[in-house]
């Protein structure tokens, strides 16, 4: 079991809402989870389920308006980030907690040399001369395996390939050795051979630096290959959480089960050509008009009367395997 001091991040009952023309909705609703030192927690779900809003909430970067964090706590190394004022938060952001995005140009400035950007990021948090920070920048570029790091440090973002820009962004995010790194779909825009390189790099560095990692993805393959623990989100809520092996061996929530059955696999020998996939019928509900009970009920084969009336609580089905489903116990037999 984890020692309390091993805990890097402790999120409790996080709730983030958006006020839009079509109404108020909860993009993240009552979300709790923890991340330990050196641990990888994957958050998986379909588009719009609240993954990025969760990440932005942890970073205190939710655009306000239209969004606002309205409840819960985000405790990083013992400090509740939601209680900090903006100046205090600036001292933490990019220092103890960092984020990398799907699109590297979200965090890279196109008109500043790569090395100088890392220097600025480092000097914001550490009392170092330009020269010392410059050495750290080159060292970081070497760490993310950019060839000829000293030369690359003098180049602008557009002079790097997509994969290299991703590496540069990672270098910048890790320059201050944060306790927690949040990676929001870091490889979604990349080709599969580059994705493999970047994922391997992130995991290597995490091991080396002992960073806690929240990896956000919609790809169950990426989850299986990287995470120790997994959270499955649906319509702003956590519907399942488990260790990665338990989750893939015996998913407890019908949605997780459906997702796993709907991804095509590279064929095992003897698999019939063109077998139909199991599909989840229907589409993700609009967050503005969520059903009263289980949000998955309109698409769920197992739904019963109760599901439409009452939201199922997250229950522990043994060994920290959580699922929010009235029929979780039967899922393996029925589905």
């Amino acid at each position, binding site marked *: 079991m984890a020692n309390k001091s091993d805990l890097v991040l402790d999120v409790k009952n996080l709730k983030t809402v958006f006020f839009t023309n079509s109404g108020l909705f909860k993009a993240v609703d009552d979300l709790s989870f923890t991340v330990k030192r050196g641990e990888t927690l994957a958050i998986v779900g*379909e*588009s719009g389920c609240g993954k990025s809003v969760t990440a932005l909430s942890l970073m205190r970067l939710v655009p306000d308006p239209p969004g606002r964090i309205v409840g819960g706590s985000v405790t990083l190394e013992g400090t509740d980030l939601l209680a900090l004022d903006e100046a205090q938060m600036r001292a933490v952001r990019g220092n103890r907690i960092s984020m990398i995005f799907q699109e590297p140009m979200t965090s890279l400035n196109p008109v500043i040399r790569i090395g100088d950007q890392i220097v600025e990021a480092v000097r914001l948090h550490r009392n170092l001369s330009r020269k010392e920070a410059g050495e750290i920048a080159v060292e970081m570029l070497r760490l993310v395996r950019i060839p000829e790091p000293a030369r690359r440090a003098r180049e602008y973002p557009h002079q790097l*390939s*997509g*994969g*290299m820009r991703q590496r540069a962004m990672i270098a910048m995010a890790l320059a201050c050795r944060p306790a927690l790194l949040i990676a929001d779909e870091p490889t979604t825009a990349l*080709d*599969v*051979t*580059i*994705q*493999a*390189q970047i*994922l*391997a790099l992130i995991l290597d560095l995490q091991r080396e630096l002992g960073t806690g990692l929240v990896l956000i993805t*919609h*790809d*169950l*393959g*990426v*989850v*299986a*290959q*990287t995470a120790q623990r997994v959270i499955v989100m649906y319509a702003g809520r956590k519907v399942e959480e488990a260790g*990665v*092996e338990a989750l*893939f061996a015996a998913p407890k929530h019908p949605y997780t089960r*459906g*997702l*796993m059955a*709907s*991804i*095509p*696999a*590279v*064929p095992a*020998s003897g*698999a019939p*050509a*063109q*077998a*139909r*996939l*199991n*599909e*989840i*019928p229907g*589409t*993700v509900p609009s967050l503005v008009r969520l059903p009263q009970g289980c949000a998955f009920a309109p698409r769920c084969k197992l739904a019963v009367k109760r599901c439409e009336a009452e939201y199922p609580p997250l229950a522990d089905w043994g060994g920290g395997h959580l699922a929010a489903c009235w029929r979780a116990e039967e899922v393996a037999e029925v589905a």
Partner: protein
Amino acid sequence: MTEALLEVTDLTKHYPVRAGVLRRQVGTVHAVDGVSFSLGTGETLGLVGESGCGKSTVARSVLRLVEPTSGQIRLEGEDITHLSKTALRPHRRSMQIVFQDPFASLNPRMTAGDIVGEPLAVHGLASGKELEARVARLFEQVGLRPDQMQNFPHQFSGGQRQRICIARALALEPRLIVCDEPVSALDVSIQAQVINLLIDLQRQHGFSYLFIAHDLAVVAHISHRVAVMYLGRIVEIADKDELFRNPRHPYTQALLASVPVANPLAKKLVPLVDGDVPSPVNPPSGCAFHTRCRFAMERCRTERPALLDAGDGHQVACLLNEGTGRNNAVA
């Protein structure tokens, strides 16, 4: 072997790269560089490869949406490479395309019904009540409700919009549908719905798909045969099962090893290639993969490997083992 519906021979498409005020040509993009394949009736050929390797350019050349620099495209036995616009018209009906982005490819000001019916109206094949009835039938075929014909594209979800695109492609009863990343923009659960729909429609109508995607699992799932492209060339082509069980080209092997398998107990990801894909502007000499290949030999820098028969219905372009590539089974 059935008669080939589509036969592409030595297809090449180059684009000039211009620079400076005089717009002088400073290089050439080798978007597609000598691609040959054939596609049988009722068959699905998957085309995979990394971004920029020329998949869409092949697709658009086949449909004559771009003019090839050289090579030949035969549809149902007839050479259509140089047909004029009018001469091409009857063939246009036999080939349709479905794009990746179901948002960009639909006119936001037209109703879904009008979008689907437009090809029928343009070709003068139906009008009035008859047109409406046919569109309603197309809606049902792709799993939409006829009462949704009055709705506009923004009132549909991404998956439904892709269904509209498919219904429109079906309207003229084509023999070939080119699908350029048709499910890449969709969520996994919706992706499965659209893949199933494409498979079902093929079973009912017997048409052929040229199916492009960068997701190997998706391509593996839907295709009968698969071609792997790298920097404008086909490096390997084989029956689906054969290709995935016994990939012979080092690039195909690297590609397969990079796919994250959705099983935490399976072998962990191994990046088998370093670096990025080189630029298609003046690509590497010899075997274009030699800059990243773990098995590259001296001659790979100068000799361009031809796509040769390597047994088991496999064609491979690699100089190893007298042109049969690397045998995965003995590695």
